[in-house]
Each structure stands twice: as structure tokens, then as C-alpha cells.
């Protein structure tokens, strides 16, 4: 290696450190906060590595039975909204791609630009009128605002790149459109469906704004539950940070393990809901 190359290498690694350190340091600090007793969290200068680790913070959060309820609520809302979005969105993406009906994507663009709150006002009234406000149904339905455009958008892009020859051959052999979709197009599209699934799950799981308006005491999802903890427990940082970490941990693990799919999906669609 020439000196010039060595300097280049050092410069590159320094840049890499500078770039990733805000993310790494933040999440390490979050972990540190969640594992400290109050006395350490209230210390100045701050304690970075505590002498006594407060596993109790996690135990307390997990032990409260409300937290379990909110966790199940989150699972139902995200699961329901993602499943419904895949059921209607994957065929729609296929149809739009095959008809080359690109103008219909305008609706998705409008959905992308519209502030989440403007859906909430009319749908809030509608759910109130239908008497659904005490249940999880309104949240599942309104999360479709987030998940359906993501799924359709990613599936259009995916089906446009899959080859037509097999499908045409199957059509000539007398298969129906539905059979072609079910047995030819769908199996090839599995990686695309995985991308759509992962992104829909993440953005639905993270959603906050719909929950604060539509959720009652029993129907809160985890982000809303954590937000409500702030106002009541202003000074107990340990359990708060532990709760925050538990809420976001599934998403962070998904991000690291499905990094390739997420990058592919975001680069192609660059969609975010809400």
C-alpha cells in the first residue's frame, strides 16, 4: 500500500465512524438509561456504565398487566392492518402493473402527501356514529391508510420487473387470469411480498397519531401507551427508557436482520405512511 492509499483508508474509516456514531451512541445511551437505577440516572456528570444494573426496570414494565394488553393490541392492529393490506394490495399491484394503469398511482401519491390527521377527522366521526370507538376495529381500519399504499406501491414496482413470458404461456394453455396470478405470478413475487410485509409492519407498528385520537384506555397500542407513561412518570427515567426500548426493539431487530429488503423497498418506493 502506498502512503496515499493508507491515508485514504484512514480517512474512510474515520468518516464511517463519524457517520454511524450518532445512531450507535444514541441507542447505547437508551440502553444505559434503561439499565440504571434512578440515583444513577439523576447523577451529574452522567453515569455511562452503572455499577449496579437495574434489570428491575424491565421486570417492572413487563410485569404490569396493562403492558401486556397494549402489546397484544399492537399485535392485533399491526397484524390485522398488514394482513388486510396484503390481501387487497398484492392483487391490486398486480392488476395495475399488468394494465400499465400508472395514472391510478396518483391516488397513492395523494395518500402520501395527505397529513394523517386529515383522515382522522371524518373517520373519527364515522366510527363514533357506527359505535366502534371502544374497539380495536377503528385502528385496524385507519392503519390501512398507512399499509395499503405501501403494499400497492411496492408490488406495482415488483410485478413490473417480473417476466411476462411464463404468464402468457399459461394464458395460451387455457389458464384463467386468477390461476395465472395464483400459480405463476404470486410464487415469483415472494421476495417483493416480503419487502412489502416488512415495511407495512414497521410503519404500522410505529404509528402514533391515529392511536392518540382513536384509542381508549383499553385499546391503546404500545406507542400511545409509552407516550402516556411520560405524563405520569416524568422523573422515573429508568422504567421509561426500558419501556421505550421494548416498544422499538422488534422494529430495530427487523431493521438489522432484514436490512437488505428494507433498503430495497425504501429505495424503490421511498414510501412512508402517516
Amino acid at each position, binding site marked *: 500500500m502506498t502512503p496515499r492509499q493508507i491515508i485514504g483508508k484512514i480517512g474512510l474509516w474515520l*468518516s464511517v465512524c463519524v457517520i*454511524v456514531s450518532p445512531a450507535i451512541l444514541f441507542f447505547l445511551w437508551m440502553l444505559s438509561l434503561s439499565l440504571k437505577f434512578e440515583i444513577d440516572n439523576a447523577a451529574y456528570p452522567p453515569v455511562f456504565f452503572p455499577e449496579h444494573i437495574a434489570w428491575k426496570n424491565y421486570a417492572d414494565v413487563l410485569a404490569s398487566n396493562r403492558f401486556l394488553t397494549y402489546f397484544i393490541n399492537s399485535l392485533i392492529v399491526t397484524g390485522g392492518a398488514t394482513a388486510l393490506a396484503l390481501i387487497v394490495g398484492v392483487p391490486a399491484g398486480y392488476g395495475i402493473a399488468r394494465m400499465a394503469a400508472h395514472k391510478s398511482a396518483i391516488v397513492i401519491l395523494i395518500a402520501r402527501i395527505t397529513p394523517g390527521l386529515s383522515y382522522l377527522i371524518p373517520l373519527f366521526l364515522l366510527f363514533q356514529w357506527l359505535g366502534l370507538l371502544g374497539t380495536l376495529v377503528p385502528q385496524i381500519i385507519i392503519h390501512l391508510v398507512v399499509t395499503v399504499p405501501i403494499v400497492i406501491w411496492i408490488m406495482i414496482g415488483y410485478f413490473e420487473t417480473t417476466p411476462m413470458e411464463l404468464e402468457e404461456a399459461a394464458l395460451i394453455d387455457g389458464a384463467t387470469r386468477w390461476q395465472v396470478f395464483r400459480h405463476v405470478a404470486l410464487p415469483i413475487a415472494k421476495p417483493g411480498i416480503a419487502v412489502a410485509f416488512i415495511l407495512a409492519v414497521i410503519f404500522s407498528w410505529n404509528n402514533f397519531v391515529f392511536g392518540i385520537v382513536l384509542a381508549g384506555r383499553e385499546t391503546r397500542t404500545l406507542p*400511545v401507551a409509552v407516550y402516556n407513561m*411520560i405524563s405520569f412518570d416524568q422523573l422515573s427515567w429508568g422504567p421509561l427508557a426500558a419501556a421505550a426500548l421494548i416498544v422499538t426493539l422488534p422494529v430495530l431487530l427487523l431493521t438489522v436482520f432484514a436490512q*437488505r429488503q428494507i433498503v430495497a423497498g425504501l429505495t424503490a418506493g421511498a414510501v412512508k405512511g402517516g
Partner: protein
Amino acid sequence: MSALTQSTPGAAQSDAAPEKELRPPSYWPFVVPALVVVLAIIIFPWVFTIWMSLNEWKVGSSTTFVGFSNYLRLTSDPRFIEAIGHTLVYTVLSVLLPLVFGTFAAVVFHQKFAGRGFLRGIFIMPMMATPVAIALVWTMMFHPQLGVLNYLLSLVGIPPQLWVFHPATVIPSLVLVETWQWTPLVMLIVLGGLAAIPTEPYESAQIDGANLWQVFRFITLPLIMPFLFIAGMIRMIDAVKSFDIIFAITQGGPGSASETINIYLYSVAFTYYDLGYGSAIAVVFFLLIVLLAAVMLYARQRMVWTEIASDA
């Protein structure tokens, strides 16, 4: 086929007919379920919002048609006008800073180095993490007495700040969080652009002895401009609508120093339950976003034209 249709329009009709018969069922059945959903949760709310904005509509009392008076009320609502200012400042900063840092990060991630995929996964964690959870930890970090940020500042000799607890620093502090959170998205889009650049210009630049900055400024930057524009557009749309971070950290405070249009919209609709007026804000808000997007498109076109003009 298209040449044929153009030359003999009469024959084209008889030509198209058998083709249709060959593929009788269309693709519409695939789209219909999604269409119903989109109509119900996207189109219906829009139509209903416009209708509500023309009414005096408060929860618990009767509604009356008032025409455009909700819109007129907006023009003389100081809180709304102030919110527009906050939104614009917040948006401009939250577009420019991630664009700068994201481009730098993309150039670095475009190089080959060990563990690149894993580190890229770490790097995009801020944008994937639950915003409320992040906001909570940032709130603790912003704490004037016990927060880690003031401690870090003290290490380099900067006096402690009030961060989100002072009207003058609240918006820059929130922009810091927004930048930390969304720089990765810019990075990913620009990285996609870098992957599409041919290698020839770099080879000839190396022969000519150009330094790193010159290579970036005169080769990379012009070539990734379209991607920077897309990233800027997406960032603008998201920053204008930013809600979770602001709401969870400051709720628009202190006072109303960080109250953006979206936060004000929330207060009007779901704190005061003034749904008619809230709907009017939602409509104006949407039009403002479309207007900003149009301005960006126009600026982009002007830029392309001046580039061409300066080349000629």
C-alpha cells in the same frame, strides 16, 4: 401495430376486437377490492373533509352550513399564521440538513469496506425506530440539568443550553432530532443514484489529477442531482407533516413556540373538537404542501434551464 392503426383507422377497429376476445377477463377484478378500500379510507375522508370545512361543526352541537367563513377565519387567526412560520422554518432546516449529511453518508457508503452491510443496517435504525420511543429518550437528553447533551457541551467548553425548553432554541433542537432521524432516508436515495453513475468520468478525472473535492463537485454532484431532488421532495413532504416527534417532545411548546400547522390542526380538531374549522385547516394545509411541491418542481426546472444555458 401502432403504425398500422395510424395508417388505416378503419382496419384498426376490426383488429382490436379479436384481440379483446382472446383475453376476455380483464385485470380489473384484481384491483376492485383495493379500490373499495381506497375509496372508503382515502377518497371518502377527503370529500367529507371538504364538506365539513364549509360547516360550523363542533362535537356535541348541531352543524350549520357557513360557506367559506371557516376559511376567512383562518386569514385572521394569529395562531395559524404563526404556525405557518414555524412550519416553514422547521421544514427548510429539516430538508437542507439531512440533504447535506445524507449526501456525505451516501458517498462514504458507496465505498467498499468490511462490514458495510451491517453498518448500513445500524445507520438506518433511527428512521425505522418507533418515533415516540426515540422522542422520549431525546427529551431526557435535552434535560437542562441532567441531560447528557449539556454534559457533552460542557466537555468542549460550551455553556449549557435550554434546548426544547426555550422558545428560541426549541425549533433548532427539534430539527436536530428530525435530522438525526431522517438523514438515512436521504442517504439511501442518493446511494441508489451513486450506483447508477458510470465509472468513465472518474477514470479520466484521476488521470487529470483532480482532488477528491473537485471530483465530488464537478462529477458526482451534477450526476446525483436528480436523486437529491427526489430526496428533497420526499423530505419536504414529511417535514411539513412532522407530528410524532414535535408532539411527543414539546406538544408545540413552550407556549406556542414550536406549534406547526399539523400540531395546531390537532389542537383545533381533537382538543377543542372544532371539526369544521379543523377541516378547513386540513384543506389549506394540503394545498400548502402541493404548493411547496410545485415551487420545488418549478425551481428544479429553472435550474435545469440555467444549466443548459450556461453550458451553451
